[in-house]
């Protein structure tokens, strides 16, 4: 019995290790590249033979990268805040209120979740140029928040539906004013859902590439994913591999931090909106 149990455990151990390796291998490769000196870049080894911070120093000395990093953070944060605020309002209505047109809203957000962004690139490119927000922060914030709104509404309304609304009644009978009921009971219960949604929306905005390369033309609004694609080596004969790897690692760090800290919440958020029996 004990032996069977052990072999069972071993089997699961092997499976788990395979899964973890699967998930981490490409990530490790780019990390390894980012720490390699130019001379050893091509040695193909998984672990850098001599570790160097040169690539990181290099990218942080160019405005090309630092500016893009500021753009990425600023644009993703602002778009997240707006999308979560608008999403919270709409999701509250969807989860709690009865009003005609709710199905229309749900249908519309579903449509937009499926919308091919490339179909918007050409018209938005032209519209943004004519109203003067092409290659600016708003030029990216607007499409980001739009495309993350369905995600926000879905996830939040799933979370809101989980809140036992009897509690609101209970609070009222316990002597709370509507404002107190909201502040002392509803907000603490809704906060985790809102926070989780914010993380998901941030990841979504942080990730975008198509809008970032289509709706920007200079450093002024270009985000890191787009900037990486335009990296050039420090001299024209040098491939920018090291710089790209370093920049890639830098923008992966926040994601890894989110995932490590909020793994459970992210899983709940991702699945709650999509599948509910």
């Amino acid at each position, binding site marked *: 019995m004990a032996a069977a149990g052990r072999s069972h455990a071993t089997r699961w151990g092997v499976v788990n290790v395979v899964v973890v390796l699967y998930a981490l291998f490409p990530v490790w490769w780019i990390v390894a590249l980012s720490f390699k000196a130019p001379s050893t870049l091509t040695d193909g080894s998984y672990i850098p033979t001599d570790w160097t911070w040169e690539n990181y120093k290099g990218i942080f000395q160019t405005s090309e990268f630092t500016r893009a990093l500021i753009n990425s953070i600023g644009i993703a944060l602002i778009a997240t805040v707006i999308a979560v605020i608008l999403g919270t309002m709409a999701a509250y209505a969807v989860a709690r209120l009865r009003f005609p047109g709710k199905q229309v809203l749900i249908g519309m957000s579903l449509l937009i979740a499926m919308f091919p962004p490339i179909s918007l690139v050409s018209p938005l490119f032209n519209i943004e140029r004519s109203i003067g927000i092409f290659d600016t922060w708003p030029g990216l914030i607007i499409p980001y928040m739009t495309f993350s709104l369905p995600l926000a509404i879905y996830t939040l309304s799933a979370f809101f539906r989980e809140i*036992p609304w*009897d*509690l609101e*009644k*209970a*609070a*009222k*009978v*316990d*002597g*709370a*004013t509507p404002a*107190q009921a909201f502040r*002392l*009971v509803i907000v*603490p*219960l809704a906060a985790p859902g809102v926070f989780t949604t914010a993380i998901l929306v941030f990841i979504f905005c942080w990730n975008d590439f198509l809008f970032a390369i289509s709706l920007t033309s200079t450093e002024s609004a270009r985000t890191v994913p787009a900037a990486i694609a335009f990296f050039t080596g420090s001299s024209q004969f040098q491939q920018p591999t090291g710089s790209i790897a370093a920049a890639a690692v830098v923008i992966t760090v926040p994601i890894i931090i989110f995932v490590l800290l909020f793994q459970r919440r992210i899983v709940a958020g991702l699945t709650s909106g999509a599948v509910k029996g």
Partner: protein
Amino acid sequence: MAEIVLEGVTKRYPDGSLAVRDVNLEIADGEFVILVGPSGCGKSTTLNMIAGLEDITEGTLRIGGQVVNDLAPKERDVAMVFQSYALYPHMSVRENMGFPLRLAKVDKATIDQKVEEAARVLDLVEFLDRKPANLSGGQRQRVAMGRAIVRNPKAFLMDEPLSNLDAKLRVQMRTQISRIQRRLGTTTVYVTHDQTEAMTLGDRVVVMRQGLVQQVGTPAELYDMPRNLFVAGFIGSPSMNFVQASLTPDTLRTPLGDLPLDDRMRRELERRDAPREVIVGLRPEAFEDASLARDTAGPTVTVTVEVLESLGSDAYVYFTAEGGPVSTAELDELATDSGLADTGAGGDQQIVARLDAATRAREGQPIELRVDLSKAHVFDPKNGTNLTHPES
């Protein structure tokens, strides 16, 4: 503490449907009143209107002499226990129970003292610092009770507080609720769909159906003198047996046999000009094993025992009456509510008799039963009125 008075209270929903119609009820200070009825009868709506969680469309509601129709729940000083307990998941037991006091801006020391006191009464002292998620169902129920009693409100409102507990715990908590209510002497309105709970807990019971009050009375009154077919069928377990009958001047012709009318019944039926076709209601204990009967008065019927259930103290005997099941709107609603409609027990009318445990009834054998006509009721099939009720 206060009395609660409902005068012509009505709830009409936006779509025009009436949830509660013209309820008149005076609940005395310290009284324990039960609202009971099948789901959708308006009992919870009535309770929510008393709590202030739903608006009153028409009528007046007074708590402690003050009209509270337009007061927010906060200003009514009532405490409520919800079916789901509605404990705040982000607060510990201590914080949950202290929450109403905290909102009332009571100082910290007093809150602590009152919470400790309530916790001692409810046997919750060791759980005070746990979160609701880490409590069992019974413990959660007690926390919900605790939250109600700490603040010493004018009234307790309880909305099916025991229906999420398993059967054994429910009986235990039932006696505990009763004990606490008696000790505190707080006016209590208690909603349930379980007639056993209603009968065992309440000083008075209000039976409701389709938004209308059917009858108000003590448990004994409801049991012995139901005003109509609905109350008769709803109260009592096993429930009252019903058979079709034709009325002749001095006999009830039933599928079980002819039952001669006694003086009381003849008088009432004449006074009310009873129709020819009626429904006769007999509680299981209206039957007696004729061979064991103490007095030999009263008619007897002979039936064939189909199922015998011996409970030690009593024996239940099941048999069928020919002539098909009795069906009226009231009885159909009761059957649907209790789930009997789903048991597939169609066909002939099932009758159950509660006999002395000493009975010699055997399954498949005939038995002679004596019928106690003083416990029989005659109902008008058209409107369900109890034609033998002295006042109706």
